[in-house]
């Protein structure tokens, strides 16, 4: 049992990890991430890469929706912008991978900045509809700006190549995606230790008093849109390297809902919530698929009948979360930690 966490300096109290326990756990997490490829299954490696891409994207939406309180239904469109940017630059000019990813983020951030402009006048549901409209416009551009986007057929993406090594399979791509994910999640965590992150939360909680203490709503709302879209753009770029083809169908409007659901199920306004949400939303369908397959020896038709049931279970799980744990998985995680912090005593 830990009684308290006494600190000697303000620096320790403001630290990213407040206790040694947290540092140890984070070390273990990093070790697990490094050792994960030892499982040798390319199916699991593919899932791991996909989960991490979704973690980056969900974290981005969490910054905008969970922390700044601006609901966006166009997040997948920014991922698409990132994916097309990578496909365009790598396919057309063969520019280096890391540069492409930065460009993907930057282009998405620029477009996100523009899409954020309505947020200065409208809030809540109205803003959600405005972002949805922006996503529809972007979808139209992807479909019709054929010289750049390849129109209906889309673009093929070359293999990601860094220092002569071809990252053709998920096993190799993992070593590109994993470090980027860790860095971007930590950067998001840092953001909310500073004045910029506090300004975002202030706008979410009460925009009038944010203004009175000198926070420019104009600047910070658009900054939040740009940062969020930057994350989406990078995630989209990595997605392009994973799937190697980008079409207008790659990021449907439903994908935006997917990320919004991930933010809410995970726990809006917490970094760890974004991670949990993305992992949950990506893996549960796979898990349900695997369990259906596992039943085949007993019920040969299981996969036929269970396929539609799978979606129903998935939907029910989300509804269940909204009802029983509206603060998301992050809140369950917090409660678990508190339980063990006091163990063997109970509150």
């Amino acid at each position, binding site marked *: 049992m830990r009684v308290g966490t006494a*600190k000697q*300096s*303000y*620096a320790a*109290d*403001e630290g*990213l990890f407040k206790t040694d326990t947290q540092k140890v756990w984070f070390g273990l997490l990093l070790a697990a991430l490094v050792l994960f490829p030892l499982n040798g299954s390319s199916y699991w490696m593919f899932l791991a890469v996909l989960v991490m891409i979704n973690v980056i994207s969900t974290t981005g939406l969490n910054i905008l929706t969970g922390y700044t309180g601006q609901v966006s239904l166009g997040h997948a469109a920014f991922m698409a912008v990132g994916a097309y940017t990578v496909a365009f630059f790598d396919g057309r000019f063969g520019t280096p991978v890391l540069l492409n990813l930065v460009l993907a983020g930057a282009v998405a951030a620029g477009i996100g900045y523009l899409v954020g402009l309505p947020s200065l006048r409208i809030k809540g549901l109205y803003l959600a509809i405005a972002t949805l409209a922006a996503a529809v416009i972007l979808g139209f551009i992807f479909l019709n700006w054929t010289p750049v986007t390849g129109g209906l057929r889309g673009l093929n993406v070359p293999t990601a190549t860094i220092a002569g090594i071809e990252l053709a399979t998920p096993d190799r791509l993992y070593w590109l995606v994993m470090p980027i994910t860790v860095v971007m999640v930590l*950067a*998001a965590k*840092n*953001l909310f*230790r*500073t*004045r*910029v*992150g*506090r*300004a975002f*939360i*202030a706008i*979410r*909680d*009460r925009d*009038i*008093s*944010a*203004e*009175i*203490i*000198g*926070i*420019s*709503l104009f600047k910070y709302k658009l*900054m939040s849109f740009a*940062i969020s879209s930057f994350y989406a753009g990078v995630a989209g770029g990595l997605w392009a390297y994973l799937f190697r083809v980008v079409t207008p169908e790659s990021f449907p409007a439903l994908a935006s809902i997917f990320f919004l659901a991930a933010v809410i199920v995970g726990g809006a*306004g917490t970094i760890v919530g974004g991670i949990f949400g993305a992992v949950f939303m990506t893996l549960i369908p796979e898990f349900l698929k695997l369990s259906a397959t596992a039943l085949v020896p007993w019920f040969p038709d299981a996969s036929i009948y269970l396929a539609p049931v799978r979606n129903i279970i998935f939907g029910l799980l989300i509804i269940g979360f909204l009802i029983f744990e509206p603060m998301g998985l992050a809140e369950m995680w917090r409660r678990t930690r508190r339980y063990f912090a006091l163990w063997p005593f109970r509150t």
Partner: protein
Amino acid sequence: MSPSDSAAPVRPPAARLDVENLSLQFGGVKALDGIDLHVEPGSITALIGPNGAGKTSAFNAISGFYRPKTGTVKLDGVDITQVPARDRAKLGLARTFQNIALFRGMTVLDNIKLGRHAHLTSGVFGAFLYWGRTRREEMELRAEIERDVIDFLELDHIRNVPVAILPYGLQKKVELARALAMRPRILMLDEPVAGMNREETEDMARAILDVRDEWGVTVLLVEHDMGMVMDISDHVCVLNFGRRIAAGSPTEVRNDPDVIKAYLGGSGDPRKAALDGAAMGEVA
């Protein structure tokens, strides 16, 4: 945790506020009609009046939420009537709200830190890395707030508590703390003791006096608690139906026939005595 050093807090000089001929209109309703208000540096000035007199409207016009129809607001002689609300923070104009306007999802410490937002400079790239200048700035901010605000208002036991779960009186105090973190030269408090019991009221009144004495800041407040107003104010300005009907020291205002009429609807001696009684009954 002890304060890291005992250097004197930054004490910007108290500001002078002059409001001249301020008028504000909502459609056909004249909320303010040619208000004059002069707040001396380092004074505690109270703005009082019956409900609907225009006190909060005057506050909102002075702090920049409303654009007045006519009139000027001058801070130390500089016309700030056209300065947007968010830029007035940097000029040293801080305010609290009648119905607490804290950031409910954040801790007390983060709320107070936000008060200093306009004085900090680090940007988004520094924020991602939390290194170098950003880190230094955040550390200085923390030390300074602990020393000047949290210790001063005795909030150290709740610094990591989310604001939403605090009792009302403490929330009001946190709002004062956030306003202090803005390094104000003039502090505008909108009903700082509304809805408080006597003990909380006395606590807040003492805090306001301490702030004036130790920080040397000018205080302008709107308040309904006559006992507190008469007790701590140097200067009182009375509004009714958007007009100023009296201004002066608490004693002068208390004996002003127009004020008695506005508050009690008559001018008979027993009622005046009642107001006097209310005024002197409370000692903060």
